Each structure stands twice: as structure tokens, then as C-alpha cells.
């Protein structure tokens, strides 16, 4: 294997592993704000206990997010040096803004959130929780802006020749609000809220099944259920608008989502299927004729530009994009169904009678995790063979100073270390969950202070 494919695997591995954590912390931060706010409003100690417990979980998730996040920034330079030279003028500003406007806010207030219980007044602590949440959301803003610029570049012009060719900013705000920024950001944030909410649902459902910490579990479950239901529906809407933007600005990616080959015809929507790239069709699938056209244009007969309208060297690998996209949609639909069924049964006060459903909720934490990963895979692989859509090919973006042996070495090390971290993360999460929220010493100590 050459340095290109190895670098792609390494970036994919490290970003996918990193992306387990930030969505959970973004989503969980919203729940923390609600829980702590409820405590300050009601003075009911159960909300204090909830806040403490979920803050500890948050701390663990955040630590892994930090540890794996710095890798990402470095890899732009280490593995994708030519890309960095090409985009630095545009992309770098967004990264610098992320550091200054988001990470500092997040880390500063996180210190108070985690360690400041006895050091600041409850109101100040609550404010810190809110700022941690803002900071977490802002970091998503800037990195998604930067990524969206790679998908739908705007606000730049290309100057220079040879090794000096690069994109330069002409309009900062057009770069920031490039055509896909808002839709992709809202889609990403909804996914993050889902990740946080379903994590809380899963742990609470586990306690409910085991009949442990019942009051704690019921209240956590209720808050999380509402967020899960709302964000899952919003996710459908933001996904819909994202797809419209993709069709308009990256038509070849949209065609790959659906493996829609005909150059310009009404497009069906496949519930599932297997792409036959050689014959350029979908086998063993169930398709609803005209549905994709209808979703995009409110007209089942409207033509959708297909893959054949693009030369093969500008098409992404269709089968992978199709499958990741479709599994994301399937899981997303499942999460809507699950959360609204849960909400309905909760309202009828019957949910706790359905043990199988609680069991499904225990597993549901994996839903947003998988859907978020699959969504990013379809978005990023769908952008191939370009690293910056229609401007720079991925193959042109790699570091010339780095050879395959070096990347193999670092890739193997990342593989081993991340496997170890994942095992430790799951082990420690399980420990915390088994230990439960009852942490009487801690509550007493805080009260004494």
C-alpha cells in the first residue's frame, strides 16, 4: 500500500475514533444545563445528584475527546502537507477561530464545572455549565464550517502556479457561510444532541430494568426522552435540507447516495439494496419510484442528475457511499420511531411495563453513534476523489516528505493505542454506571461547603 491510501486510512481511523466523543459531550452538555437549571429552580436534591453523576460521565468523555482531538489538527500538517499549503489561507482561519473562540471557553469553564463545586456560588457554577455547552457548540461550528468549505468552497479564489498554487480568501463571511455550512452544522448538532440524549436514555433504562436508583433514572430518562424525540425529528428535517444542498452543490455525491446512474431521469428512493458498480445499477433492492425526485423537488417526475453525467474519474466510490448513507437513514428512522413510541408510552404512564422496550433503549446508545459515523463516512467518501470539492484531488493533497513506512508505523500505533483507549473507556464507563449516582459523601461535602 502507498502513503496515500495509508494516510487516508489513518485519517479515517483517527477522526472516526475521535468522533465517538465530541457529539456525546455536546449533547450531554445540553442535558447538564437542564438538570442543573432544574436543581437551582426546584432545590430538589435529586437534580443535584443527577447533575453530579452526569458531570462525572461528561468529564470522562471530554477527556477522551481532548486526547484524540489534538491528533486531528496535527494530521493536516503531518499527512496532508500539500493540502495544508493549498488551503491554509482559507481553512486555517477557521481552525484558529475554533481555538480562540471555542476551545478556550470550553476548557476554562470546564475546570469550574468539574472542580469548582466548592469554589464558586451555585449560580456561577450554573453559568459555567452553560458556557461549557456554548463552547462545545462553538467548536462544532468552526470545524463544520471548515469542513463545509471543503465540500462547497466559496469566498475564495485560486492563485499561483505549481507548488505555489493555492486558494486565498476574498470574502471571509462567504467562506464561513458557504452554501452548505448552515445545513451541515444543524445536521451535525442534531446528531450530537441525539448522541447525548440516547446515552442518558440508555443508562437510565438500564437502571429502570434493574430497579436501581429509580427516582434518578425516571427523571433522567424523561429529560433525555424529550430531547431525543425533538432532536430525532429535527434530524429528519436537517437531513432533508442537507440533501437538497448536496443535490444543488455536489450533485455527484447525491447521485452516489442513491446510486442513481441515469444522467437525467426521475430518481427512485431505495429502502435498501446492493450496488452493482460494474453494471451500474442496484441489485436486490426495494425502490420506491420517484420518491427521491419527490423529496428533492416535490415532483416525482423531476429529473435528478445521475452518475453517468459525470466522468468516472470524478465519481466517488458509489457502493460504500450508498450503504453508509442508507444505513444512516435506516437508523435515523428507527431513532425517531423509538423515541416517539417511548414518549407516547411515557405519556400514557405505561412505558415501564414494557421491559423489552426498555431493553431496546439500553441498546439505543449505539444508534446515534453508528448513524453519526455512517453519515460522516457518506459525506466524506462522497466528496472523493476530491479533498476540496472540484479544486484539489485527495491524491494531490498528501505530504511529499512522508513515506509509506512512516505512515504504516504510526497507523499501527494508532490502531493499538485507540483499541486500548476504547477498552478502557468502556470499562470505566461501566464502572461508573455500576457504581451509580449514589455518592453520598460527595453530596454531603458539597452541602457542607
Amino acid at each position, binding site marked *: 500500500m502507498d502513503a496515500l491510501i495509508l494516510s487516508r486510512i489513518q485519517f479515517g481511523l483517527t477522526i472516526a475514533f475521535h468522533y465517538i466523543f465530541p457529539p456525546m459531550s455536546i449533547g450531554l452538555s445540553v442535558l447538564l444545563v437542564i438538570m442543573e437549571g432544574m436543581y437551582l429552580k426546584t432545590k430538589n436534591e435529586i437534580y443535584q445528584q443527577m447533575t453530579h453523576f452526569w458531570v462525572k460521565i461528561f468529564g470522562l468523555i471530554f477527556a477522551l475527546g481532548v486526547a484524540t482531538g489534538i491528533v486531528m489538527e496535527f494530521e493536516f500538517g503531518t499527512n496532508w502537507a500539500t493540502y495544508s499549503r493549498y488551503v491554509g489561507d482559507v481553512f486555517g482561519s477557521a481552525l484558529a477561530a475554533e481555538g480562540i473562540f471555542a476551545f478556550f471557553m470550553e476548557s476554562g469553564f470546564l*475546570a469550574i464545572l468539574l472542580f469548582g463545586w466548592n469554589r464558586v456560588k451555585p449560580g456561577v457554577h450554573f453559568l459555567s455549565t452553560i458556557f461549557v455547552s456554548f463552547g462545545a457548540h462553538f467548536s462544532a461550528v468552526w470545524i463544520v464550517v471548515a469542513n463545509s468549505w471543503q465540500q462547497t468552497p466559496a469566498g475564495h479564489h485560486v492563485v499561483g502556479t505549481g507548488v505555489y498554487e493555492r486558494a486565498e480568501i476574498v470574502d471571509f463571511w462567504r467562506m464561513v457561510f458557504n452554501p452548505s455550512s448552515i445545513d451541515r452544522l444543524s445536521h451535525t448538532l442534531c446528531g450530537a444532541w441525539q448522541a447525548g440524549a440516547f446515552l442518558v436514555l440508555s443508562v437510565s433504562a438500564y437502571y429502570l430494568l434493574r430497579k436501581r436508583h429509580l427516582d434518578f433514572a425516571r427523571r433522567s430518562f424523561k429529560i433525555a426522552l424529550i430531547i431525543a424525540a425533538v432532536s430525532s425529528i429535527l434530524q429528519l428535517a436537517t437531513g432533508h435540507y442537507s440533501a437538497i444542498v448536496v443535490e444543488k452543490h455536489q450533485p455527484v455525491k447525491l447521485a452516489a447516495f442513491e446510486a442513481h446512474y441515469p444522467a437525467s431521469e426521475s430518481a427512485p428512493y431505495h429502502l435498501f439494496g446492493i450496488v452493482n458498480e460494474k453494471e451500474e445499477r442496484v441489485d436486490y433492492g426495494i425502490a420506491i419510484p420517484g420518491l427521491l425526485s419527490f423529496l428533492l423537488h416535490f415532483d416525482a417526475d423531476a429529473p435528478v442528475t445521475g452518475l453517468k453525467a459525470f466522468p468516472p474519474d470524478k465519481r466517488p466510490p458509489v457502493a460504500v457511499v450508498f450503504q453508509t448513507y442508507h444505513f444512516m437513514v435506516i437508523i435515523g428512522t428507527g431513532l425517531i420511531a423509538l423515541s416517539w413510541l417511548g414518549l407516547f408510552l411515557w405519556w400514557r404512564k405505561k412505558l415501564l411495563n414494557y421491559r423489552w422496550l426498555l431493553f431496546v433503549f439500553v441498546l439505543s446508545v449505539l444508534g446515534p453513534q453508528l448513524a453519526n459515523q455512517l453519515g460522516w463516512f457518506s459525506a466524506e467518501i462522497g466528496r472523493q476523489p476530491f479533498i476540496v470539492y472540484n479544486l484539489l484531488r485527495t491524491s494531490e493533497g498528501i505530504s511529499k516528505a512522508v513515506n509509506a513506512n512512516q505512515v504504516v508505523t504510526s497507523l499501527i500505533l494508532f490502531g493499538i493505542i485507540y483499541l486500548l483507549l476504547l477498552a478502557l473507556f468502556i470499562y470505566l464507563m461501566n464502572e461508573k454506571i455500576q457504581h451509580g449516582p449514589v455518592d453520598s459523601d460527595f453530596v454531603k461535602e458539597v452541602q457542607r461547603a
Partner: protein
Amino acid sequence: MNIVFDLNTVSFVLVGLLFTGYAVLDGFDLGVGALHLFTKTDEQRRLMLNAIGPVWDGNEVWLVTGGGALFAAFPRVYATVFSGFYMAFMIFLFGLIFRAVAIEFRSKEPMKWWRNLWDISFSVSSIVSSFVLGVALGNIIRGIPLDADGEYIGTFWTLINPYAILVGITTVALFSMHGAIYVVMKTEGPLHEKIRGWVNKTIIFFIVCYISTTMITLIYIPHMIIYFREYPILFGIPFINMVAIANIPREIIHRNNFRAFLSSCAAMMALMTIFGIGIFPNLVHSLPLAENSLTIYNAASSPKTLSIILTIAVIGVPVVLAYTVSVYWIFRGKVKLDASSY
């Protein structure tokens, strides 16, 4: 040889400022890591960790932001250095990963082997990270082989030269000194007295390294002293540096621990300034072909982007300083272990 305060120079100063913030702040928590294994009891080790507990993560953000600013302002430097130093930076990253999780994981389990494992991991990764940073710095000072396109053409072993190793060791010494002073400031009782005894040792260790590095630099790396020769007033900065270092033992004896720490911070700022003046206007000196060097002009982004970054900095940096000062203020005083501690 005139210094012109144009957009590029100001951007250079900004990136330097961010990395100085990183050195001064993360420097002490890396140093605490380097000294960690010299403390023996579980309680003392927890005190060490919790002394940096609320701040180490924010300290590391200075690196992330400095990196982002370098990427934005001087993308060709970012690309060349990061890809050229590939394996070195990978080791640095693994160090940072192990450090972060060691701090978080260590006190989560009571088992002795578990805690020992993460203690070792924390300490070794702190030393390795500091050392690699120093080696990278040493190579930037000394110069690295670049081709006409500004691409690195050496290998991993090019980076492992005596001068770079010396700067690496000096960095570990500097951070250990800085960390020891920080711990003295943040602790009381037996740990405090113990570390107080170490401060002078770390200072001596650092001064020995520092004098050797300086002499070798003066003799073998003439391009570092061009501006000092041109503007003798700049010698004020090494002078401030020496006064600041000399002041540390004095403050420690008088138990003015906070002032000792400020002295140490001032010394590090002076060192970073010396480094900045030394390499200016280059960012990466090319050795042997100096004409291939990456400068603040040939490696820079467009004036438009530089002014965007400076705007972001003008808005952002005061806010960042406010956060930083607030957090250090809220967590002022001696560290005490409670239920939210590591």
C-alpha cells in the same frame, strides 16, 4: 536589517505569543509530570495531579490555538514542519494522548498496580513530550534541509543531532524547574517541603543545560545572533532572563512562592523572545542551503488572511486572557483533595 512592523511581522509576533503562552502554561504541567515519579505516596501523587487538575487542559489549548494560527498565517511552515517532523510529532502526539488519559484514569480505580501504571504513563509521556518539543525547537534553531519548494528533504535521523538533543534536554530541565516551582506554590505540608528542596536542583540542572546550549549556539549557529549584533539593546532580553532565573532561589528562600513562579514565567517568556528574535525573519532556517529558508514573507498567507487572523486575535485574545486569569484566580491557593479531585 531594519525591523519593519508590517502585517507579516505582527503575525509572527502573534504566533510567537500563542506558543509562548503554551510554553509558560503547559510548561509547568509537563514539568509536574516529569517530577511525578519522584513523589512516593499515593496522596502526594494525587496532590501533584490535582495541582494541575483544573488547568492542564486549558494550557494545552494554547498549543492547539498556536498551531491553528500557524496553519492560518504561515501554511507553508505548518506543512513543511509537520510533515518533515512526521515521526517526531507522532511520538509527541502519543505522549499527549497518554498524558491526558493518565491524568483522567489514574485515580478512578483503587488498585495499586493500576495507579502505578498510570503514574508511570503520566510521567514518561510528560518527559517524552517535553523532550520532543525541545528537539523540534532545536532543529528549527539549527536549521533543517529544505529543497527549493520548501519541502523537508532529510529523514527522521537528520533530526536526531547532538544540538537538538541538547535543546531537548534543556527543555525537560526548564519545564522541571518551572513545574517544581508551581508545585511549591500550590502545595503545603510534607510534599511542599520535599519539592522545595528540589527547586534548587532543578535550577542548577537547567542552568548547566542552558549555558551549554547558549555557548554552542553562539559558536556554531551564527544566524541566531544577527539581530542581537545589529541592535545591542536586544541584549537586555537575555539579561532579563538571567536576572529572572537568579531571582528564583532568592524568592524561594524568602518563601515568596508566587513571586518565584512569576520569575520563572518571566524567564520563559524571555527565552521565547530570544528564540523569536534569533530566528527572525525566518520561520524555518534551511541548512545547508539558506536561500531555501521559509520566511515570514515567502511562507505567509495573503495580507487579507493575515488581517483576518489579527482581527480574530484582537477580539479573542483579551477574552482568552480573561478566562485564563479567572480560572487561575478561582482555583488559587493550596490544592486540597476532595470528592471531585482526581
